[in-house]
């Protein structure tokens, strides 16, 4: 099993107390699996990603363990964690378009970074060139400054750099949201290519755009207000979601081919709760039409079918499908 997360709880320290951004997240990502991580803004998906990569104040690890290929990750010890970063676990950040130092040649940046990890640049150069071709970047990009490249090109350079040492887990944080439709498809296919070519063993793709996940992800984990709502294979999430929130979320997405005149889609009334002092139990309770007294307790994130996890009391009490 590539990644196992147990009871991961991360809060943000602020002047007015702790923002409970991530609450008891327990899930696993198998080898070769591309897991989509989706949810509205403020649902904790970025917090989850950042806690795996760079847990720095004001974030605080409250509880939970993360194992990667069986090894326990020292999440809150930045020094020891840096050995795992880039070699075992790597990230393509949301700000990939300005993640490269503007006043340094790209080749030099890569060389110095590899050197700091004890890897000789010359030996890895041929592989680097092959991967540049893969993302349609010419080799003389290495001799250029980031300022000379377009946004899309810079992002692809960062993609290549992040997976250069074949990390076992790659986290792609909202990398498609700033792109146009055409480049979006190309970048998504490149990520899948990274997994197929074994550059990375497993992949977590974070985005608020579920239709992108439908195209490229094997499974999707839906989060709401810091809690895991549902995880299942992509088709199950899209075709037969069980969690009320997932169902409403999928229903509210306009699909090409649906016209306002014919079928009027509906959103979800209300707003996600503020996480400074979140409501007890299931945090979707106030916006959920099927909420009942049991929802005052936190629903367990339990496997109701092979590979299909749901956190909703409805699965136990009343009849299975409402």
């Amino acid at each position, binding site marked *: 099993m590539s990644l196992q997360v147990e009871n991961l709880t991360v809060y943000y320290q602020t002047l007015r107390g702790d923002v409970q951004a991530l609450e008891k997240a327990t899930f696993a990502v198998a080898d070769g699996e591309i897991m989509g991580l989706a949810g509205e803004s403020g649902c904790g998906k970025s917090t989850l990603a950042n806690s795996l990569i760079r847990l720095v104040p004001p974030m605080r690890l409250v509880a939970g363990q993360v194992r990667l290929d069986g090894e326990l990750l020292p999440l809150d010890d930045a020094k020891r964690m840096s050995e795992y970063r880039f070699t075992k676990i790597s990230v393509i950040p949301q700000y990939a378009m300005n993640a490269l*130092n503007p006043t340094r040649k790209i080749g030099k940046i890569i060389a110095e970074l590899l050197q700091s990890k004890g890897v000789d640049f010359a030996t890895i150069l041929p592989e680097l060139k092959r991967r540049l071709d893969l993302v349609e970047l010419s080799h003389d990009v290495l001799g250029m400054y980031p300022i000379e490249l377009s*946004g899309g090109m810079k992002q692809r350079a960062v993609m290549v750099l992040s997976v250069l040492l074949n990390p076992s887990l790659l986290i792609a944080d909202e990398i498609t949201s700033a792109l146009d439709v055409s480049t979006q498809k190309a970048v998504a296919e490149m990520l899948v290519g990274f997994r197929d070519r074994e550059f990375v063993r497993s992949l977590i793709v974070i985005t608020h755009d579920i239709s992108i996940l439908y195209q490229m992800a094997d499974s999707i984990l839906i989060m709401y207000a810091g809690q895991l709502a549902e995880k299942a294979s992509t088709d199950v999430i899209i075709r037969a979601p069980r969690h009320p929130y997932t169902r409403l979320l999928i229903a509210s997405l306009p699909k090409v081919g649906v016209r306002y005149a014919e079928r009027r889609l509906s959103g979800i009334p209300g707003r996600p709760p503020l996480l400074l002092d979140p409501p007890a139990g299931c945090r979707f309770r106030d916006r959920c039409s099927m909420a009942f007294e049991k929802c005052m307790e936190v629903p367990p994130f339990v496997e109701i079918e092979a590979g299909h996890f749901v956190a909703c009391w409805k699965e136990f009490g009343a009849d299975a499908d409402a």
Partner: protein
Amino acid sequence: MRRYLGRKLLIYVLTFFLAVTIDWLIPRFMPGDPVQTMLSRASLHAEAVEVMYGYYTRAFGLDVPVWQQYLNFWNAIFHGDLGTSVYLFPQPVIKIILRAVPYDVFLLLPAVLLSWFAGNWFGAFAARNKWLDNTLLPLGYILTATPYMWLGIVLAWAFGVVWGIFPIAGAYGFSLRPHLSWTFIGSVLKHWFLPFASIFLVKFGGWAIGMRNMIIYELEADYSHYLEALGAPRGLIRKYAFRNAILPQITGLSLDLGVIVAGALVTEVVFSYPGIGYLILQAIQNQDYFLIQGCFLFIIIGVLLANFAIDIAYVIVDPRTRLGMMGESA
């Protein structure tokens, strides 16, 4: 890149033109007549004043119409003839100034460059951890807030008068004549140290603070976060941040030259160090307008040349100016 330097050159030419015009305007624009005040000092009886007045107005070319004077002034500059000094009468202004310039360069160049390097290094070092930041940085604020001359006085008083280690006046021992020997060089260095120290310390504080703020911004930049996310060692991240934080300090240096020159003027006055500053003070005290004009011109030329040199250095160091903006516009 050509465009960047072209623009800068245009600004400097315009500045030079404007400065020279101001320099020419001032004596003519101010109340009172320079020649009149000069003569009144010379306590002559009435008709001698009349004759002398005619002679001097012709000598200083004040009798021709204004725009004619202006043109004469320009071609005089290009011939290096800045008129004759009133206070050291027979000597042409240009010769007096040229005697003072080497001392200025000898004092300013090391003070400016050393304070810049040391200040920046110290600012980066102080930003390394919280304790250093809260103890050494306030020292930086105090230093940069100290008036140049006051620090000069205190240093002169403490080291010169109380402990008597350093001389506090002139550029070298009064008993010595400028000649190549160790005693002379030793004396020059001893006289040079205190003025140098007072300029150095004040500017040192300024650069340290500037660098501390810049490096914190750079450490918060996206590329620093990305390097951290890839587990790069602190040293590498700080090296990149320092390299990027130094760039605005280079432009800061060129913009700050005007202030540094002013500070040097005052420090020279405190230590009666025979640079242009001391010369200006004497020129002012003796109402020698042409010497003042000459000194001002030299300062302007010096500052403009230094600025242009720094701009060239900036273009070499910062690739962004060399390549201009390549990315597609939204």
